[in-house]
Every structure is written in structure tokens, then in C-alpha cells.
């Protein structure tokens, strides 16, 4: 297969970037999207050009490191697919593909397709944990947890923190990410002691990081490679109302 790639190139955080067009040919349909970038980078290196910088790690769709906008979709037009799990058979031969980084004030571009997502780390640091008594491991089933609650927490915990929700949100809001982390802990008894402080601190950090405000469009849910539901955003809203009233 052959493609015309229009890739966002930006030397560093302060530089003004622009799109550069790269024709690539002789690509197998079973090439993954990141492998396509690898192949292009090898060819760029061979002719002495600067390779395209992009984030990647596990390439199994579970680490949340990769991701960029592909033809206007966060990660991919395919549902629940990270960029590394996207394959060139999903595109048509000869297609022009526009590749740009996540765009959000809270995610500044560091280089080419790499953005700084440490705002997510700061949100987690401010409350995405539970205080436990360190010591010997508790007995299994010492704390009874209803199956439904465990399932709900697991659904929320599926979030890999890739940032696609922010990228796809028309408001660049981080509500889906933050709500998944809050809902995961609020669904389980272990998360209850810090329940009120957690939602206040995590939302406050989210606001200070420069994210936008949710308008319930649902673009985040559609873009999420793990299918995190906007129902968790309503859960966050309930938690914050509870904290405002009684906290």
C-alpha cells in the first residue's frame, strides 16, 4: 500500500510547528500504525533527516503511552483501538493521512507528536490513592465487596491514562479520565475513608491544570480505547456534590 502522510513537525516546546508531507510506499496492509512511523523514520534516517518523535511503549494497547490524532480522530476511527493496535488495512490505498499531536493547553507539545501529559500524573498524585495500614497482607475476602461494585470499579480501572478523552473533547476537558479514577476508588470500600477529600483535591488539580469544562457531548467515550463510559462523569458529579454539601 502507499500513503501520503501529513505529519505535524515541531522542534521543541517553544517552536512553532507545521505539517510536513511524506509520501510512503511499499507498506504491507498488516503494518501497524506505529510500525508505519518506524518504517518512515528508518527511511528519514537513511537520508539524514530528523526522525518523527512519537510516544510508544508496550504496543499491546495496554500501557497508554502512544496516541495522536489520525485524520481528526483520537487514536483511530476504529472503536476501542489504541494507535498501536491500528493497522494500515483500516485505510484505503493511496489515502492522505493527517497526523497531529493531542492539542490541549494542559498537554503542551514537547516535540512532533509527543505531548507532556504530566497533568494527569498531578491529578493522580493529588488524590488517586488510598491510605492503608502497611503490614501483613489482609485475608482475601476480609472485606466483602458486592460483585456489581467490583465490576464497576474494574470498568473504571480499565482507563490507561492515554489522554484520548482530552484530545477528542471539544472543550479539552479531562472529566472522563478524572471521573474514571475517582469512580474506581469510590466504588470500593477501601476508597471510602478519603472519598470526600479525594474528589475535592483531584477536581481542584484538574481545574488548575488548564483543562476545559465538560458539555456532555460524549466524544470522550467514543474516542476512549478502553470504552470508559460517561456514566462515570455523572458519578464524579455526584461525588463532588456530596463533598460540597457534607465535606
Amino acid at each position, binding site marked *: 500500500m502507499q500513503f501520503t502522510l501529513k505529519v505535524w513537525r515541531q522542534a521543541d516546546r517553544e517552536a512553532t510547528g507545521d505539517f510536513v508531507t511524506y509520501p510512503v510506499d511499499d507498506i504491507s496492509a498488516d503494518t501497524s500504525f506505529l510500525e508505519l512511523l518506524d518504517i518512515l523514520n528508518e527511511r528519514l534516517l537513511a537520508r539524514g533527516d530528523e526522525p518523527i518523535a512519537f510516544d510508544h511503549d508496550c504496543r499491546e494497547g495496554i500501557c497508554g503511552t502512544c496516541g495522536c490524532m489520525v485524520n481528526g480522530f483520537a487514536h483511530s476511527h476504529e472503536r476501542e483501538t489504541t494507535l498501536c493496535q491500528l493497522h494500515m488495512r483500516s485505510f484505503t490505498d493511496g489515502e492522505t493521512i493527517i497526523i497531529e499531536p493531542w492539542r490541549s493547553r494542559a498537554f503542551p507539545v514537547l516535540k512532533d507528536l509527543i505531548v507532556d501529559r504530566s497533568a494527569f500524573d498531578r491529578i493522580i498524585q493529588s488524590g488517586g490513592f488510598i491510605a492503608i495500614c502497611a503490614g501483613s497482607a489482609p485475608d482475601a475476602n476480609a472485606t466483602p465487596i458486592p460483585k456489581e461494585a467490583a465490576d464497576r470499579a474494574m470498568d473504571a480501572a480499565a482507563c490507561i491514562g492515554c489522554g484520548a478523552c482530552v484530545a477528542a473533547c471539544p472543550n479539552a476537558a479531562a472529566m472522563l479520565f478524572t471521573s474514571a479514577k475517582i469512580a474506581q476508588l469510590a466504588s470500593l470500600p477501601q476508597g471510602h475513608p478519603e472519598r470526600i477529600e479525594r474528589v475535592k483535591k483531584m477536581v481542584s488539580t484538574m481545574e488548575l491544570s488548564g483543562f476545559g469544562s465538560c458539555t*456532555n*457531548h460524549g466524544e470522550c467515550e467514543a474516542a476512549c480505547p478502553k470504552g470508559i463510559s460517561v456514566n462515570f462523569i455523572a458519578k464524579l458529579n455526584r461525588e463532588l456534590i456530596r463533598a460540597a454539601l457534607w465535606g
Partner: protein
Amino acid sequence: MTWPVLGFFNTSTGKKVGMGVTGFVVVGFVIAHMAGNLQVFMGPEKLNQYAAFLVSLGGLLWVLRGIILLAAVLHVIFATQVTLQSWRARPSSYAVYRYQASSYAARTMRLGGPMLALFIIYHLLHLTFGVVQPAGEAFDPHHVYNNVVYGFQVWWLSALYIVAMGLLALHIWHGVSSMLQSVGLNHPKWNPWRFGLSALVAGAVALGNISMPLAVLAGLIQPA
């Protein structure tokens, strides 16, 4: 002493809850207003009596008007704040961006909202204060029926009202489901009902309100 809860409205989530609650008040008014106005189909005496009854409420009427005005003003303030926050959140826009999930109604909230605000100002000048009378007939504060009918006999004014009610229905369509989500009234079991309720309220408001100018234009309702 610090004010409890007030800090909540410094967060975007708090502002969204505020928009939901104020939106609920305004939607409640819109439905009551429409129900009252539909009495135009029951003849001039009925509608004029209803108007006289509202005026006879005196102080209570002004309390109700105050609540609705306060809700509308707060709604606009919260909406402006969260919109500015969101615009700041993405300083450089995408070269290509594709919607996957959001409805047309959701995407036009920020356009429809200010347009509705302008319409409401015009509507108040036309039928509450009587300052603007495109029909050329004198405004009679005791003859609501004729004020409405003379107004809607002007085709472009009816068209303006019909378009405005279309915009209102769109705003309510996303607004009702969105307000329930914002205040946390969301449950997988009830979500189909949440979207159904939005469509029902939006549809009822559009049909009910548009039926009045259409009936006047069709000659079904004549001046008394």
C-alpha cells in the same frame, strides 16, 4: 464564618450543576408559559382572564418573575464562564477534527443560547412591554389575545417566532439530558428514559409553541 458550598461553584463541575439547576427552572417556566398561552385556542375571554389572573397575583407574580430572571441570568453567567474556560483549554485547534458522538443539538448550544437571549429580549419588548409593535396596531395591556393575534398576522414575525422555537427545542433537547447528567442523575437503567424525556420536552415545546403562529397565519385564530 465562611459560606458553605459556595466554593463548589468555582469548579467547572459546580458551574455545570448551576447551569443544570437554573436550566431546570427556566424549562419549568417555558412549559408553564406554553400551557398558559395555549389558551389562545379557547378564545379571547379565556386568555385575557388568565392574563388578568396572573396580574392579580401582585407580589407573588414579581417573586416568580424574579426567580426566573435570576435563574436565566445565572444560567448565562455560568455558561459564559465554562465556555471561556473551554476556549482557553485549547489555544491551537486541530487541522482536522471529526465528531463521532455528539448531536447537532449539543454542538449548537453556544450558538443557540445567545440567539435565544436576543429573541427573549425582543419577545419581552413585543408582548410584555408592548414597545415594539410590527403590526402597527396599538398595544393593549388588557387584551393579550389581540396583541398576540395581530403580531402573528405579520408573516415575518411569525417566522421569527417559529425559528426561535426551533432553536429553543434544540437547546432543550441537549439541555434536559445534559442537566440530569450534570447533577449526577444518571443510571444505565434509566439513561434511555433520560434521552427520551429530553426529546419529549423538546418536541412538546416546539409543537405547542409553533402551533400558535401557524394557527394565526392559517386564519384559524382571528382578532376579537
